[in-house]
């Protein structure tokens, strides 16, 4: 955490900035971890500044976790509250699990950004502002009622002020760029200032800018110039502010790393599985926030033979994938909750036709259009039960940005080996959040062996003939001689595979499809318990993208001497085999999730007599670790 130090109020010769408070001496503080939040207009380039900062920190050996927080509007009116876009970076000397609850440094490029981000400030947070954007009209746009925004918001923090806009214009006046283009470099000034504050050398940032603007060298040069200006500005004019170091203190596993967000990791996980299985990857998709990047990512990978089709609608996204699966591809469709509604009928076709399919649902706030850019865990029941008929399938929930890779790989492996649709739940938070990821060697990943028919099976073969242990049917790919067959959405006879409406056959097929999914519990790892697994007084249960927050809460509580444990579920359906045993072992169990209790309800249905506490938040925002600690502590203290 940022260390407290003595502040002296300094009034500078600027009439509109008489609220500037400066620290009185230059010190360098060593920190364990720090959270920086870049915020500004959605056109201010805060995402870029933030991602460069996280990337260069990762290169320096810090652990990172990031989270972009953008508005639903692409370009809301400039300077307004609804147009504020944010990017939060958490860097740590040791492992960090979340992008952080509150920020240690807030970059606010305008008064609107300051106002919407007050809730992320602590009394110790340092604020960086562009004083050029704090004129009367700017304050009015952001709906301030007075001319002193800091007093109005009751902010008493340390503020680093810089006339960023005018410095940019001045600095680039000979660059050939017009004012508008020069102002687009403002984000780099802020980044430079933050780099100075945290003693980050600029080389890597410069390198990244050169790569990003490799085709526009003049833009690269302008950005680099302003970046340096920002750094020097900090150095020259604010020498009396504390600067900070976050030195790496933990040895990471050796190897090559990259910064990756959840959607990219999901994309790569699918690619890796197709590569391992030796079949083409096919993605049928329709653009939808926050899942669209998966379509973007995979569309780029043609050299790896990836086939993508941007379909006419969500239904077609799923149906074309089912067609490609029938034709022998690893088929996937990517979407968010509203898209899953539209795909449900088609998913059921894959259930009854027993075809492999991966449905990625990057969950967002609902119902209906809901909160497209915000994150929730409200589609769990939809994934497990949201179709007509008895329709069992596999549900997996990725736990972090980097875990999306492994989860997408496992979703594909299970789909292909067990001839079933798999719904992979991620969410807007881990999809857009990023972390450092060790580039894996596929040699270390388990083989993927789909149950293909073999020539000796040909005699008397039927399409719904199955392995009697796993209950998985065999896969005959069109083009294979001697295995012509017809699949369909109508119920089929267990023995002959012909259409059947026979009552007892339907019962048998229903049980068979269920048994096939239940069997998968034998193929997935047992549920792990973290923390005080032998003597915890409280077991925290979570699933999916809240892992980082729940783990941080666990760590905090253990440091406070409390006996707690965490069971964080990745496999939702079927549940790991030891689930009942775990849930019955602890005195108190709390299920924490970003919905009204969907996993808790599911667990109660699966574990008769289970008595659990619930912690539920449906705010579209990540959990707050301190709040979790508070609530869990209350539960522990309850008699």
């Amino acid at each position: 955490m940022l260390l407290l130090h003595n502040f002296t109020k300094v009034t500078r010769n600027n009439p509109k900035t008489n609220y500037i408070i400066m620290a009185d001496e230059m010190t360098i503080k060593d920190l364990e971890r720090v959270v920086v939040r870049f915020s500004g207009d959605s056109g201010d380039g805060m995402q870029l500044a933030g991602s460069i900062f996280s990337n260069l920190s990762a290169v320096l050996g810090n652990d990172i976790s990031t989270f972009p927080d953008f508005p639903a509007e692409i370009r809301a009116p400039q300077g307004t509250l609804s147009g504020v876009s944010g990017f939060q970076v958490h860097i740590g000397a040791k492992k960090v699990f979340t992008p952080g609850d509150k920020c240690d440094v807030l970059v606010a490029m305008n008064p609107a950004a300051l106002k919407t981000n007050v809730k992320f400030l602590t009394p110790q947070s340092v604020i960086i502002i562009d004083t050029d954007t704090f004129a009367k009209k700017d304050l009015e746009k952001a709906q301030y009622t007075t001319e002193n925004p800091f007093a109005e918001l009751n902010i008493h923090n340390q503020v680093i002020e810089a006339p960023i806009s005018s410095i940019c214009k001045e600095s680039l006046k000979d660059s050939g760029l017009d004012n508008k283009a020069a102002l687009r470099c403002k984000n780099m000034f802020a980044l430079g200032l933050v780099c100075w504050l945290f003693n980050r050398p600029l080389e890597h940032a410069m390198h990244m800018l050169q790569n990003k603007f490799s085709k526009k060298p003049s833009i690269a040069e302008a950005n680099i110039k302003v970046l340096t200006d920002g750094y020097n500005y900090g150095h020259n004019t604010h020498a009396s502010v504390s600067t900070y170091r976050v030195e790496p203190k933990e040895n990471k596993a050796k190897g090559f790393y990259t910064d990756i967000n959840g959607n990219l990791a999901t994309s790569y996980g699918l690619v890796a599985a197709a590569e391992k299985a030796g079949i083409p990857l096919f993605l049928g998709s329709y653009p939808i926030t926050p899942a669209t990047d998966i379509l973007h990512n995979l569309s780029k990978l043609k050299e790896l033979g990836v086939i993508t089709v941007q379909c006419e609608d969500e239904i077609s996204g799923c149906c074309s994938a089912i067609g490609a699966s029938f034709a022998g591809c690893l088929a996937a469709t990517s979407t968010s909750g509203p898209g899953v509604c539209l795909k449900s009928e088609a998913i059921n076709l894959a259930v009854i036709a027993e075809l492999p399919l991966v449905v990625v649902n990057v969950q967002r706030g609902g119902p209906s259009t809901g909160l497209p850019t915000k994150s929730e865990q409200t589609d769990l029941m939809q994934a497990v039960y949201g179709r007509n008929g008895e329709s069992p399938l596999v549900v997996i929930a990725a736990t972090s940005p980097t875990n999306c890779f492994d989860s997408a790989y496992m979703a594909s492996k299970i789909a292909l080996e067990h001839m079933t649709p798999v719904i992979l739940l991620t969410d807007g938070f881990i999809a857009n959040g990023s972390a450092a990821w060790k580039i894996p060697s596929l040699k270390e990943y388990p083989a993927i062996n789909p149950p293909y028919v073999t020539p000796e099976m040909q005699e008397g073969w039927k399409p719904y003939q199955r392995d009697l242990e796993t209950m998985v049917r065999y896969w005959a790919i069109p083009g294979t001689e001697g295995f012509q067959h017809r699949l369909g959405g109508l119920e089929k006879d267990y023995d002959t595979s012909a259409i059947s409406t026979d009552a007892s056959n339907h019962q048998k097929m229903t049980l068979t499809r269920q048994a096939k999914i239940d069997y998968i519990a034998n193929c997935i790892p047992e549920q792990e318990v973290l923390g005080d697994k032998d003597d915890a007084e409280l077991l925290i249960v979570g699933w999916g993208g809240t892992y980082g927050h729940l783990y941080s809460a666990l760590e905090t509580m253990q440091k406070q001497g409390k006996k707690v444990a965490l069971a964080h579920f990745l496999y939702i359906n079927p549940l790991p085999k030891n689930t009942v045993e775990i849930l019955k072992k602890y005195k108190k169990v709390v299920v924490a999730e970003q919905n009204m209790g969907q996993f808790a309800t599911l667990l109660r249905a699966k574990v008769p007599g289970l008595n659990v506490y619930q912690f539920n938040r449906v705010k579209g925002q990540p959990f707050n670790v301190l709040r979790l600690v508070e609530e869990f502590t209350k539960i522990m203290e309850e008699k």
Partner: protein
Amino acid sequence: MSDQTFTPKDFKSDQYVRWCPGCGDHALLNSLHKAMAELNITPHNVAVISGIGCSSRLPYYMNTYGFHTIHGRAAAIATGVKVGNPNLSVWQISGDGDALAIGGNHFIHAIRRNVNVNIVLLNNQIYGLTKGQYSPTSPRGFVSKSSPYGTVEDPFCPAELTFGARGRFFGRCVDVDSSASVEVLVASAKHQGASVVEVLQNCVIFNDGSQSLVATKADRAKNAIYLKHGQPMIFGENNELGLMQEGFGLKVVKLGENGITEKDILVHDAHCQDNTLHLKLALMEGPDFPIALGVIRDVEAPSYDACVHAQIEEVKSKKKDRTLEELLMKGEIWEVK
């Protein structure tokens, strides 16, 4: 194509055909078996995809790969099959409700993309499987169980919809007219791209007589014209009638009358890029005009599936990474030693 020779029987499955006796689907099924034999495609390289409806049961009666899917989605699923494996001969069997009502969106987009799928549209102007509601091709005023006072909406003309979606192939045949059906189906399969064959089909139970103008050979001689590329548009019981252009429209003329000879008659050009005349021909209705049968439009254009794979090959020729690991190692990475 195969070295082996196939007969219609090779495309027949062992399943009992369950359509109503007298249903036009029986005849079309036989024509399809014949067309595939004539094309000499290997049964295991054929995938027949259907949606829901009476005609969508057809894949079960084919000894090929088949997939009886969900209502309206056959075009989307067929798109995935063809793009997933372009070596397959992919056929889509749909009815007027399946393709033009619930599946209208997939129908037009499959055509617009020009996916190399042979779409066979069995148009009986009625919902048969749900027992007799009007369909999107039922004429205005049509009385059915769901329109006891007659419909108050206009129908789609499948050709117009196809052309509106920039369709490059449109053919039409009559269910019971086997040799002409086989000819059109074969032409549709040879066309590289989305092809639509509208089969004028009779539903004996719920809409009997809807195709009465073209039901028999004699009816067709009177009321239909068989269009053939490069041939003059002559029709009639004794080939005594022809089509001429008049302003922006067409007119029926009698050969020998007013000095009109065969030279004055329009010659069918199915390969003409401009679809204006194709549309005029497809929209002709009795009793004043003959109903156009045969291949009305057949224009070459790159097919979607071929382009998708060509693009992949092109990128492969420029970028050398073949595994995910190779690709990742060239990105923004750093090493922890």
